[in-house]
């Protein structure tokens, strides 16, 4: 290793470390220290009226003045919050089940069968991705809440979320099914397998990685959405976690400790899943955009 390339090597480390510590994970550390501080305040330490430089410096270091698990304990004792988590889990998993099932069948057809309307069908999914969110909100609100009366029910949310996630899932899965060689199915047909056997016993098991990504995406759609949930649900008990968490820190209450603890509980599973599956997610996203 020459001197200059050694410099560059350490330069890389220096740059990455600085970036991560100052910007990259600072907000995350800050949330963690709020959550473990045991208080509801936004500031990590109480500053005296005329603080010195070091006291100010201490105030921005993301390290709580005392460690406590009380925020977590209290929020997990809070029935409202547990209810929100339950609602979110229910809505998001139903969204996943409905979304993935619909996406698998239609993506398979789009990938394997040649039929009139195939191209238009794919375009139909793609075009819907262009629609701005608020454009759908008004008609959906009127249709789901005012006409169908599904305002305070999980069903409305599940249906809307699964169709929101559907286009991405279909494109993603279709792309994956395309890579599975047709010869496998042909030989299965030779062995006398029925079309449904081929689909359920051969294709679906082969497509497991792609299905996992699709499932994660559907789940995230349901788990992270808050605005429709807030519009559809009038009853506080029926809020999903995102819609509920907002109310810890809106204008009237500022329970930052609860908010921080709650966000960690809500985000952690999704973050872990995301990190495991992000490579496939990226390839799916960019593949769709290139074709569009």
């Amino acid at each position, binding site marked *: 290793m020459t001197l200059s390339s050694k410099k560059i090597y350490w330069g890389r480390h220096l740059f990455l470390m600085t970036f991560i510590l100052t910007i990259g994970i600072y907000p995350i550390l800050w949330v963690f220290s709020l959550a473990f501080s045991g208080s509801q305040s936004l500031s990590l330490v109480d500053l005296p009226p005329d603080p010195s430089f070091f006291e100010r410096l201490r105030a921005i270091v993301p390290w709580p003045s005392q460690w406590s698990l009380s925020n977590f304990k209290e929020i997990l004792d809070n029935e409202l919050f547990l209810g929100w988590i339950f609602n979110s889990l229910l809505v998001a998993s139903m969204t996943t089940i409905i979304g993935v099932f619909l996406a698998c069948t239609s993506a398979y057809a789009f990938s394997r069968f040649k039929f009139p309307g195939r191209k238009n069908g794919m375009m139909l999914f793609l075009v819907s991705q262009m629609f*701005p969110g608020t454009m759908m909100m008004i008609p959906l609100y009127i*249709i789901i809440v005012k006409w169908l009366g599904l305002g305070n029910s999980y069903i409305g949310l599940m249906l809307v979320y699964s169709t929101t996630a559907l286009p991405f899932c279909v494109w993603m899965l279709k792309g994956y099914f395309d890579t599975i060689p047709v010869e496998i199915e042909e030989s299965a047909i030779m062995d006398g397998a029925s079309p449904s056997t081929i689909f359920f016993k051969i294709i679906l098991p082969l497509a497991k990685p792609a299905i996992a990504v699709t499932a994660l995406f559907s789940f995230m759609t349901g788990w992270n959405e808050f605005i429709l949930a807030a519009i559809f649900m009038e009853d506080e008990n029926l809020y999903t976690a995102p819609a509920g968490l907002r109310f810890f*820190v809106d204008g009237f209450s500022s329970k930052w400790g609860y*908010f921080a603890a709650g966000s960690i509980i809500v985000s952690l599973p999704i973050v872990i899943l995301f990190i495991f599956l992000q490579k496939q997610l990226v390839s799916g996203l960019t593949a769709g955009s290139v074709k569009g």
Partner: protein
Amino acid sequence: MHEKFFPKQLVIGWVASTLLVIGILFIVLNTIENTILNKTNLYTKFMDARVLSARIEAHMATDNWEDGLQERAISWQQETGKINGVRILKLSGAKVIVSTLEKDKERGGTYRLERKNVEHKRLYDQAKLIKSNYQSNRNSENLSEDKEIFFDQQKASTWIYLPLVNDKKFYGVLEIDLINSSEALASDGVLNTSRFYVLFVILLSVLLFPVFVYFYQKKIPYVSQRFINLSVVFTYLGLSIVVYSFFSDYTSKLYVAQSDFLTVLHNERAEELSFVKESLSSARNYIAINEYGKYLFSSSSIYPQMQAIDVGNISEKSFFINSYIAILLVGLGWVVFVTCDYASRTWQALKEHRQAYLYTAPAIIGMLLLVFFPFLYGLSLAFTNTTLLNESAPYAERWIGFDNFYAILLGFDLFETTNDGYNINYDNFYWTLFITICWTLLNVAIGVTVGLALALALNAPDLRFKAIYRVILILPWAIPNYVTSLVWKGMFHQQFGVINQIIQLFGSEPIAWFDSVFYAFITGIATNSWLSFPFMMVVILGGLQSIPADMYEAAKVEGASRWQQFRYITLPSLKPTLIPAVIISIVWTFNMFNIIFLVSGGEPAGANDILITKAYREAFEKYQYGYASAYSFVILAILLMYGIIQNKVSKATEANT
């Protein structure tokens, strides 16, 4: 595929479309006639009612007028012969002093209104409304009767509510229940010939369909398909014009008939009313009856369903409507014809590819019901003035055409004058568009720059802890963005927020982040940049890793500097991965609702709203559903335009390289 010139389904389509067009035409013509008849009748009723109220007011000018009023009312009623009953409400004391209504017989004509009686309460509220309108009209000095007279048209009879005035003071309300009678318009013969022409021409245009089909299928040699297409379009246009002219001829004859009828009516009633008026000395100054007529027919305020049709003077608006109807009719025939053909083919395809459709059906049906139907419904809302309050009103009443779009796109009131100079109107569409464009470009630029820098730093095969760095740097993307937004909102808190602590650390004053347009904009940019750089980083990293290492080695041999390597190898090789990523992130950022909504909330005063949050605010904070829908469709149009330009540009660049 088509051996026969006219396969079965084409014939069916042709018959179906012909029948449909004729049916619709009949309905349209009848509706037009009925509306005109209806308006004429209403006008007649209005005249009758006004004559009666003039009589009563004339009577009120005499002494001891309340004595024996009931008997007089009955005699008036019998005189006109078109009235089911009248009721006079004296507003002070909420007392009915005269009633010849059937339902009030047992009460004997005079009684107090009861608070709990729904019908009584309605009458009282109506009277209060008329009083306040009456008074505001008198105060405004121009002698209009705007909103003083109310119509309530029902199946059996029409109710009219008019103010009663005694010595220039508001006395009460006269309620008249008029018998619904329809008087036919004269000159039916003229109408019938005209109607026949319209039918004939439309029938002719429908009959021509098979001729075109014949040409289509025969594929005449030496005549290009494009020529046939063009001739079809021109024939279609020509026919529309012919149909249009017949149609407008027909309707103009209708209006002339109406006008003749009303002129006769005017003269009759004017005599009657002037007779009554002579006996009035101190009563209010009436607008001449002819003026009334004009007023009633030129203002939609008395009776909302009334359109602007001037008596004897056909307005331009109705001409346009007629031409639309005519063109639509001919067009509809074609559509049905084509649809029938298409439907039969679809049915064929459905039978052939049963399995494929079975697999796709659930997803497609879901999309149609929950995405495309709401989409169309939203589109239909965009042409209405729907709000929270009039949502259940019939669609036709809410219809306002393109007014929402005009208000959005032609609202150039970007600046408003105040006492201390000019202010920017933050609710203006173009301001919001400007903010949105700044927001999108800045965010994407920052995202790409930061992502590129990080990816370059990470892209070294021998870098230790590479995986750890990568995972940590991806975290902002993995965290739900509503959490991120709220966290950053907390960090920007004026008193306790970390960012202001850092600013104070360097001795500056804390900043009120959400009070100024510029600073509030910065908060959004900071938040969005933080959560969008990982995507760019990951994509670019993927691109970097696909660049073959021997290219760099060759460059090194040639003596290229690091900058030259970056400029001539790395950047060009990144292009195919970077461009789609930039395209998609432009659309994402343009539509990034959560950040703006949660971090700055569009503060101050909506100045920082991007288009999509503005649309939300119109819909769910101001409850202007119609306007907000139109706003959303403008956003969609912008996105589509962007998509088309993007496509063209990328195709052009592809062709160049």
